[in-house]
């Protein structure tokens, strides 16, 4: 059986991915795609959408995800769409040129312009921008600012727009952060993962303990309103106390947002190979449950509240509005190799390799390689699947009679909150948060 950090190890076949990014950056998964893309229908060359995708668009927020597919080194647990310099050099001469970091920002700006064409006279300003990777901070700060500027020029940014980048604790300094802040970024997410050297080593993370905490202070000094730390629990070799120490260190740094993810050992990663060879013992899934409870306890005690299964914030304003957009079926354009987008019930995704991506845009074509148009039932299922993970839960009126019966029983079983249920919403209890996928499987009946 595949070692797996989730409860899904019994389910053969496709499984969602979900590993923190390789970047030093954050772990937010935004448009970052799994190692394999889904099947889907073709995307038209000009990237145009079915007209109905824009019906009612004015009522939905619009966001941008910008993917940066570069990393200094590949971490042993990472299966994201990212490339090291060495990996890119293996291509042909033309590919190497196309996939170059130096021209990346220019390519991405091309896609922002394509987005403008495809969305036509859509008047919406952009409410959130999230730059993820890979390691966005491997690019000069000016490149990130330039990409953001393209969005501002083409679409306009809302006055209160949230603009985040992931950042690697190793690759930023006060000057870099100041440049980002000045360029319009107001939120930064650092990939801390652990405070313990032996855990960072298993993860192949190169930063030293203490550096992410220092980054928080530097970001705050640079004037960032919001700072997130990404943490990983359940790494082989990590003890409950190691995890507590990580939480304490993170909380001590004073971010207003923390994301905590269980480590998923993905097929095809170096870590999976090391576990298979017996070099590293996998973590038992019950230990993941223990760690989650430890996190909930420590974070709550420090004044954080959960607002999504893996996300906690000190205030409502500290919540990541960009991610919220994913979970509530809003529209976003994912730009960059392998990035996923969603507009009005149409999901599409770009080709994965930076060279192919650049070639498409240089040729005036959409880099999209596949899409799916969601049926009404697909959209209902997605709503249950995504909204149930939120602290507000999902409305019971989304459920069919069979699903409603499941929800009623889940109240009895202690997985759903009774008061919220009585008020017409399915809201997970603490135990329910740990069994959310199982519950969703039954509730969408």
């Amino acid at each position, binding site marked *: 059986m595949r070692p797996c950090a989730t409860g899904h190890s019994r389910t053969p076949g496709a499984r969602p991915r979900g590993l923190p990014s390789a970047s030093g950056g954050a772990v937010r998964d*935004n448009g970052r795609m799994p190692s394999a893309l889904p099947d889907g229908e073709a995307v038209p060359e000009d990237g145009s959408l079915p007209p109905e995708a824009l019906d009612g668009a004015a009522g939905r927020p619009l966001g941008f995800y910008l993917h940066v597919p570069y990393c200094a080194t590949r971490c042993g647990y990472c299966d994201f769409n990212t490339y090291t310099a060495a990996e890119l050099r293996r291509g042909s001469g033309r590919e190497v040129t196309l996939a170059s970091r130096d021209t990346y920002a220019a390519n991405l700006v091309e896609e922002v312009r394509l987005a403008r064409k495809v969305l036509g006279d859509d008047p919406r300003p952009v409410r959130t921008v999230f730059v993820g990777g890979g390691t966005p901070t491997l690019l000069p700060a000016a490149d990130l600012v330039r990409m953001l500027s393209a969005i501002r020029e083409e679409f306009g940014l809302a006055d209160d727009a949230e603009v985040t980048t992931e950042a690697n604790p190793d690759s930023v300094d006060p000057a870099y952060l100041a440049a980002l802040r000045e360029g319009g970024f107001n939120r930064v997410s650092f990939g801390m993962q652990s405070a313990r050297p032996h855990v960072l080593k298993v993860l192949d993370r190169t930063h030293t303990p203490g550096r992410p905490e220092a980054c928080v202070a530097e970001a705050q000094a640079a004037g960032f309103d919001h700072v997130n730390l990404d943490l990983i629990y359940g790494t082989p070799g990590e003890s409950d106390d190691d995890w507590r120490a990580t939480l304490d260190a993170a909380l001590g740094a004073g971010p207003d947002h923390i994301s905590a993810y269980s480590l998923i050992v993905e097929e095809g990663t170096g870590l999976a190979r090391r576990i298979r060879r017996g070099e590293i013992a996998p973590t038992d899934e019950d230990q993941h449950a223990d760690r989650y409870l430890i996190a909930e306890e420590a974070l709550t005690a420090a004044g954080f509240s959960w607002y999504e299964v893996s996300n906690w914030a000190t205030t409502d304003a500290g919540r990541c509005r960009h991610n919220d957009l994913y979970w509530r079926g809003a529209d976003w354009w994912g730009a960059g190799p392998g990035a996923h987008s969603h507009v009005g019930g149409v999901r599409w995704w770009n080709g994965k390799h930076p060279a192919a991506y650049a070639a498409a845009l240089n040729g005036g074509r959409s880099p999209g390689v596949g899409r799916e148009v969601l049926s009404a039932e*697909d959209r209902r*299922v997605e709503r249950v699947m995504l909204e149930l993970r939120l602290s507000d839960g999902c409305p019971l009126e989304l459920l069919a009679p069979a699903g409603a019966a499941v929800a009623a029983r889940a109240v009895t079983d202690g997985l759903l909150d009774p008061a919220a249920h009585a008020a017409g919403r399915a809201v997970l209890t603490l135990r329910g948060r740990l069994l959310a996928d199982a519950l969703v499987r039954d509730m969408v009946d």
Partner: protein
Amino acid sequence: MPATTLSNAPEPSRTDPAVIRNFCIIAHIDHGKSTLADRMLQLTEVVEQRQMRAQYLDRMDIERERGITIKSQAVRLPWDHDDTSHILNMIDTPGHVDFTYEVSRSLAACEGCVLLVDAAQGIEAQTLANLYLAMENDLTIIPVLNKIDLPAAQPEKFAAELAHLIGCEPEDVLRVSAKTGEGVAELLDEVVRKVPAPTGDADGPARAMIFDSVYDSYRGVVTYVKVVDGRLGKRERIQMMSSGATHELLEIGANSPEMKAADGLAVGEVGYLITGVKDVRQSRVGDTITLLKNGATEALGGYKDPKPMVFSGLYPLDGSDYPDLREALDKLQLNDAALVYEPETSAALGFGFRVGFLGLLHLEVVRERLEREFGLDLIATAPNVVYGVTMEDRTEHTVTNPSEFPTGKIAEVREPVVRATLIAPSEFIGAIMELCQTRRGTMNGMDYLSEDRVELRYSLPLAEIVFDFFDALKSKTRGYASLDYEPTGEQSADLVKVDILLHGDKVDAFSAIVHKDKAYAYGVRMAGKLRELIPRQQFEVPIQAAVGSRVIARETVRAIRKDVLSKCYGGDISRKRKLLEKQKEGKKRMKVVGRVEVPQEAFIAALSSDSDGPADGGKAKK
């Protein structure tokens, strides 16, 4: 080369019994029977050289399965000996342990048999059992060692073994190589010399014994008979003496080796007949056929109804395949008079059939055909035998499904017993005796077949053999032992029903009837196995084994604590929804017991004994 060929050989219905020799070949699988038959077909020139292909008769068997042609259950071979044209009828015997009765009928159609034994391996238990049957039928035995061309052949040793068994001199044992053809002509001559001609009353009322009955989708049932007395002619009206049913003879003839119609079959002859019936149960092996007009009044002896000894519940994995399973069983039954079944419902497995078989091999063959030929995916419950239960109030129950074992005050439980023959190198005597002892066996005797090979005879409860005896025997004797058994009756025994409960709900498919002393071990084993097989649920699932209301073993599947992927962002959504769809498909294949979801794989794994089916003793080509 013999002067007699098909063109000038005596014809069916006009053959003097004095030149007829009816014989069969008794051999273990892989000892070379098919190859020997090939050589005989060539030597007697019934198959032209250019049409000859390896395992001619077996190939016809495969074709028959596909409904193309009919296997020759009996082949008519012309053979000259001492300037006289003879007719040799080579009669096929079904190859395996569950078909003792069919074998006995084939033997009853013969006056002699060739005992064919691999010169590198010696006799096997099943061959020995058939040899004893042949001796009981007073057949002339012609002992033959095959494969004498093999470097590993030990003809001296095994000739002594055969001589010892049948009471002849080692020099009397013929030595052939079916592969090269060496010694085969001499063997045919020996058949003419040694096997007596059939004797019967040529002028008496017709009596023919059915020794095989085969369904063919084009021709209906083809019935193979030996005419013991009198004569059957085409277009005559015949009567089945067991049922009194009458039929018209649409066709009668002999195989050489393809079916060839003739005017009739006379006393001593062997051939086929076709009446247009569609179901082999209307033309049963062992029955006597006579003529409606001036028919015989007394049937030939030896007829028995086939009696199922082993039962198993067969359920389609996909409940919507139930009608297909019924249709498939109906079709198989056309050609298998021993197959019985009736609908059954299991709380755990849904709708299926309780199916009765002659034995484990019969079960394997039927199951394999259902899966292979009819494309069905099946779950089979662990095979069980038939129990007789007498209650204290003297009411009687026949139990073919353990979950129907009666509750209440039981006076007596009876189980079937078999006489088992085991042959193995003598170094394994201890291991076999120990095995038989733990399986409640009683030793009836032991004989050395040769210096280092021994035959052990035991009485054993059939239930113990059905359980996992073959596998245990195979592993304890490194595959060197062979086994044969034959039902002999029943005995009273201290048997109890063990139930398995999941989360307090009884799982009917897992109930078993076992000896009181083994109930605990069975309960512990099943509970342990299920603990491994049942996935963790959202609640704790106790697994209990119980005899009546007394719990004898308990295991627990701990509740699952975490079943959530921690990341769910933009790029994850499509994939996560598709995974959800896939998981929902998977859930449809779950069987629900109470609130516990059990994957079908768990049922299959828990129900398969650790065995992969009957081993050495049983494998057969039939």
